């Protein structure tokens, strides 16, 4: 019995951390947030060179064929660096969906390109999870029409993977005619989001996705990745809080010697520490224990969203007025955690699903 990360997983984590520290320091994050797309492209290129685009793609399609635990480690590392790159949609959910639900020709068309870092695929599952503004898509005679909101990794994507209300997945080449792209501006400027309006757009069904288990697996994986991203980001906020409290003096003392501040930090640590174990455990269930994986993924996303919200608030408070400034940049982590919380279902929505999964409904 060994519960924890392997040497290989730890070294992957270290490599990403080092890469981000060298290539995406806070100045770079700020530049990207203010619209520097060249810098964003450089960092994106860098994570492709690290092999992250092909992490979960099967070997026969040119990927590394690593499991969800590896993907979770990567997501947490990207969250800790507020990395301004596509990942959860394009490099985890999309390849998983195509591999599980696609026909051989679809796999051959897309998976090697994903693995090689030659294409980005935006993923739109919001209308399956819970449609806002009556958005949604319909597939009639090989053509897709309708509207999708909050396509993850959708900006400048080469293709879109979209779900209808019953969970069937469609893949759409972004160069097809009839697509209108509307850029959305969320609080989190380290990642992009778009809305799509489709009018009779050529699209292909992933035939396997008529079995609902495909979208469920994709959703579970996506939620776990977002939870991991939050754990990584929240840990940095805690670490920064402790470090700040050991530098800043008031009343002739380090503020970290005041019990009020110590207890805020202890509460953050007590809430957050089990979340590291929880994302590893959930990943293990997704990889090996199918009967527990759905509940585990839901509860992991819901619980960690709550912890993330609390930690991001408390850490900002520990920094006092500085925590509120753009200069310090702590808000990038705060906003990242805020977006993760809502994507693919807010905690309340996901807990409703967790209740249904356990058969609480009569």
């Amino acid at each position, binding site marked *: 019995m060994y*519960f924890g990360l392997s040497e290989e997983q730890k070294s992957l984590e270290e490599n990403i951390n080092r890469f981000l520290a060298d290539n995406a320091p806070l100045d770079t994050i700020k530049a990207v947030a203010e619209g520097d797309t060249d810098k964003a492209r450089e960092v994106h290129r860098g994570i492709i060179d690290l092999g992250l685009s092909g992490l979960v793609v099967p070997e026969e399609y040119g990927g590394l064929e690593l499991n969800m635990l590896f993907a979770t480690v990567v997501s947490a590392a990207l969250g800790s660096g507020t990395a301004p790159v596509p990942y959860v949609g394009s490099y985890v959910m999309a390849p998983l969906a195509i591999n599980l639900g696609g026909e051989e020709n679809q796999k051959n068309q897309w998976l090697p390109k994903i693995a090689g870092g030659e294409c980005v695929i935006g993923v739109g599952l919001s209308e399956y999870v819970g449609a806002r503004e009556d958005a949604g898509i319909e597939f009639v005679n090989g053509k897709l029409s309708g509207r999708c909101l909050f396509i993850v990794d959708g900006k400048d994507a080469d293709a879109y993977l979209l779900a209808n209300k019953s969970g069937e997945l469609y893949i759409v080449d972004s160069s097809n005619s009839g697509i209108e792209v509307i850029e959305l501006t969320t609080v989190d400027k380290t990642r992009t989001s778009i809305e799509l309006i489709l009018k009779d757009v050529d699209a292909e069904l992933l035939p396997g996705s008529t079995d609902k288990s495909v979208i469920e697996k994709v959703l579970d994986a996506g939620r776990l990745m977002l939870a991991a991203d939050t754990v990584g980001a929240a840990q940095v906020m805690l670490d920064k809080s402790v470090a700040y409290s050991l530098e800043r003096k008031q009343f002739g003392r380090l503020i970290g010697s005041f019990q009020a501040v110590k207890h805020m930090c202890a509460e953050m*640590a007590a809430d957050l520490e089990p979340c590291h174990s929880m994302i590893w455990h959930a990943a293990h269930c997704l990889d090996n224990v199918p009967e527990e994986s759905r509940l585990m993924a839901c509860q992991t996303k819901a619980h960690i969203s709550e912890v993330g919200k609390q930690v991001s608030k408390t850490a900002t408070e520990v920094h006092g007025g500085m925590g509120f400034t753009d200069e310090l940049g702590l808000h990038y982590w705060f906003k990242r955690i805020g977006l993760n919380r809502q994507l693919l279902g807010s905690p309340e929505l996901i807990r409703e699903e967790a*209740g249904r999964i356990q058969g*609480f*409904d009569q």
Partner: protein
Amino acid sequence: MDLEYGPQYDDFRAEVINFIKENENTKLSGPPRSESRVEWQQKLIDNGYFARSIPKEYGGYGGDMDIIKLRIIAEEFAKSPIPKPAGGQGIQMLVPTLLSLGTEEQKQEYIRPTLRGEILWCQGYSEPNSGSDLASLQTKAELDGDEWVINGQKIWTSTAHLSQMCFILVRTEPDAPKHQGISYLLMPMDAEGIDRRPIKQMTGDSDFNELFLTDVRIPAGNIVGARGEGWKVANATLGHERGSLADPNVTQNRLNSLIDLMKNETIDGQRVIDKPIFRDRLLSIQGRLMAQHSNALRILSSQINKEQDATLAKFIVKLQGTELRHELEGLAIDAMGELGTLYEDSPHLRDNGVWQMTYMYYLGLIIGGGTNQIQKNIISERALGMPKEPKVQGA
């Protein structure tokens, strides 16, 4: 990541299951220390299901320290109504202390009868003016010839009315700094000069006592560790106590009972579990428990794989576990509403009143065993490296 115990443990699990099956009708009767209880305890020791890694010469089973085997025993016993091994502060705290710091004579004299349940122990630590600041304790002991003479007052002494012995912290070096002036003594409860008064708790029970000690004389040899080293000796055992509070596996059983309760109780004919706000609270608690369960797996793994560090994971167990348990019991009361306030032998009482009892008891555990505010000090100082609160002048 590997959550399997491995096929090499299948035979062992089968053995445990077989033992439980053969003994599943065992019923214990009589008070603590009665013959049937001692016999059962000895049978568990003889089969290696209790005191497994304690050497044979001291009355243990003398087996290897295999964490997975201990886990398997705990899992299988938890599934069955078979009587569990006796616990108590002697077994949880005193025996580990004597094993690491006691003299050979002390080990010979006390460990075997403690394991067999023939000697029950209470813990004489807290005093009326020394709770969270335990090291400020004032009960003193002075050597008079070959005897310690103890004077002072202890409080929150669990099960003192059932105990034959007390491990007690006393000040023996009044001129030394407060942490270095304490000694750890072993006091027979039948000594002259011990006056015990039970403390009635908010639950209605009396699990605790006050002890008034007036010229209590015990042999000079009844000291563990050297004079003035009692604080170090006590800290070794406090670690054992904190580890045993609020185990997520036990909380899981309570969650299952809560789910059943919420399926059975109705408001205007609708099941409580179908009311969205109640259900959401239930599921929030489940999410928190699942996180604690994952944390417990990490701790278990660190005990098996010594290179893994789980320091922070261990420090947070008591704080997180007791708070969650208190909230879980409280949700059950809310789910019952006015019915949830029923107690003792009232008509319409649910589950013998266990929800209110445990709700209050866990508030006690949030305070006991080092208050949760003290836990936060420990987490911030020992795990996060934050400084201690400076001393206030004149205090």
